């Protein structure tokens, strides 16, 4: 079964370039502004959209994404609203893949079967759930695959060659390579090491590889894109939201623009002169 994600990566391949994957938190700083940002992302240059499902205790996230989640929760974001935002986005855009990313508890409490139904119905294409390693595949990964959603797994610097096959086994859509051992928004990755690691993953799979964690500039996007199918930017975008807010933490007239400007700039890293091959 081909999904929007498969089609998007096939298109990118024929264009001969890597893709830009953007991460923003659902409902940050409020549902209305977040939807305006979401709708503006494809035109600004996002090839794949990741939407964070806010959680009170994001154990693998740094301060920027923690704060984004708390802003969203404070403004009343819920799973129902997150899925509604995807549905609203899908009214005008039936091609840009949407991946929901977050932690398991809000999904578990929503109910796995109902969540998969509603997510699929809303137009979600894939899931990244940070605290579900292959050891817990029965929880959500296998049901998600059966429901026709991609389940995108994180591979990390600690995932060695022995473990990679287990990580890749039920992964679909793409593989997300976490470029550093650390939390989101931390140190910038070393490009040489990233290329080597992506090369290692590619010896085990034909799936596209997206690289994320610590990427914040167009230059980094360009450098990493030279050896991967996509580059993910998260904390930098979430920080752009944060910086655009007024002193009460509310959206301003600058908020949407702040994000789309940065996305356009980052997109130049994958859309500039064709990837040297």
């Amino acid at each position, binding site marked *: 079964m081909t999904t929007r994600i498969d089609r998007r990566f096939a298109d990118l391949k024929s264009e001969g370039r890597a893709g830009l994957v953007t991460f923003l938190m659902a409902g940050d700083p409020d549902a209305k502004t977040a939807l305006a940002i979401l709708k503006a992302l494809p035109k600004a240059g996002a090839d794949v959209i990741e939407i964070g499902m806010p*959680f*009170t*205790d*994001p*154990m*693998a996230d740094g301060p920027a994404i923690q704060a984004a989640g708390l802003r969203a929760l404070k403004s009343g974001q819920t799973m129902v609203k997150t899925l509604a935002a995807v549905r609203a986005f899908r009214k005008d855009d039936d091609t840009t893949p949407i991946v929901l990313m977050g932690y398991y*508890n809000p999904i578990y409490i929503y109910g796995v079967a109902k969540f998969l139904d509603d997510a699929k119905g809303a137009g979600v294409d894939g899931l990244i759930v940070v605290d579900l390693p292959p050891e817990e595949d029965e929880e959500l990964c296998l049901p998600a695959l059966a429901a026709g959603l991609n389940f995108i*797994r994180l591979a*990390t610097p600690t995932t060695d060659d022995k473990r990679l096959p287990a990580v890749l086994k039920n992964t679909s859509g793409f593989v997300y390579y*976490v470029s550093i051992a650390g939390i989101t928004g931390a140190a910038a990755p070393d490009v040489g090491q990233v290329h080597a690691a992506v090369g290692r993953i590619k010896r085990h799979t034909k799936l596209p590889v997206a690289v994320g964690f610590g990427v914040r500039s167009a230059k980094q996007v360009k450098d990493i894109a030279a050896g991967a199918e996509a580059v993910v930017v998260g904390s930098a975008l979430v920080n752009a939201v944060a910086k655009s807010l007024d002193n009460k933490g509310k959206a301003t007239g600058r908020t949407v623009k702040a994000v789309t400007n940065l996305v356009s700039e980052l997109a130049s890293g994958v859309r500039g002169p064709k990837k040297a091959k």
Partner: protein
Amino acid sequence: MTAPIQVNSFRTGPDERGHFGIYGGRFVAETLMPLILDLERAYAEAKADPAYRREMDGHLKNYVGRPSPLYLAERLTAHFAGAKIYFKREDLNHTGAHKVNNVLGQIMLAKRMGKPRVIAETGAGMHGVATATLCAKFGLKCIVYMGAVDVGRQQPNVLRMKAMGAEVRAVESGAKTLKDAMNEALRDWVTNVSDTFYCIGTVAGPHPYPMMVRDFQSIIGIETREQMQQEEGRLPDSLIACIGGGSNAMGLFYPFLDDRQVEIYGVEAAGHGLKKKHAASVAGGKPGVLHGNRTYLLMDDDGQIEEAHSISAGLDYPGIGPEHSWLHDVGRIKFLSATDKEALAAFQLCSRMEGIIPALESCHALARLGDIVSNKPKDHLMVVNLSGRGDKDLDSVAHHLGGKL
């Protein structure tokens, strides 16, 4: 939640994937997965190595000061005029709480695994102090994450940790208590994967921690069996302990789980009351997934974790160890709760009647004692786990009692 299930033994868990019934598991980020698999292997090897056990027994005796006494609380027994009350004196261990039993095992494992850097989360600071203590003894670098609120209310322990060379990092996220300290410790571990050992302070977290911490704490129950045999020529009739994550409770209970005539009570923190802010995850929560395991958690309808409240920093956590969740569902442990006020009253009663100043955590077990023992015959033998001493709480108790201790 469900009707008690018939099982042959309550001591067979966890399965090889870390499950106690539906609870437990390994819900961690991929970065940590290889680390917890390593830990599981290293623990299995250590457990099978008689030299590891021998060295641990030596330290338990000469450094920790075990066995801890089983003490007959005569005046409290007379006061309640019911069952005979014994205290298992974990407060007399070096560092002043049961926490050290577990930390010794884990730090010896860190040493075996060649990890020079140890991190820990702490609420009351007793686990932090125990970790700082053993890191000093074994020459390891120690970093303790502690919620900023707890840093404020448990100052004596902050100073003890610093005196022994540990770095205490105050955590400013969330409610600034134990849950947030655990989040930060996990973030540290994800970042420092090659050289760091995460020393978890209770029977929670991803497999193998709940099992491993239980094993290390079981010394409490093993000694209690022997001591009660010596004192009374038989097993106790009931056991009671406070529950934060549940390590002191599991340590006392585990060796008795299959002695079905022994009644077992766990006491959660009811804070301002079960209808208000509290930390009683079995009484007021439902099964969910946090910090690497599925277990009872306090949360809202959208699966967002709620902030707990307890006067006792060591119980101020919105979850409980997964094995407790299972033992609750199968009906082997009866869960009760005690409010802040009741714990304070128990603090005063125990201090004045027995000359023992109990930790506010342990006071939650003491607070439910009266209800139970008063209805029991005089030959009923009840053991309370006196999990720690209360020196650390004196300022905070004085404050809550309006300066009148």
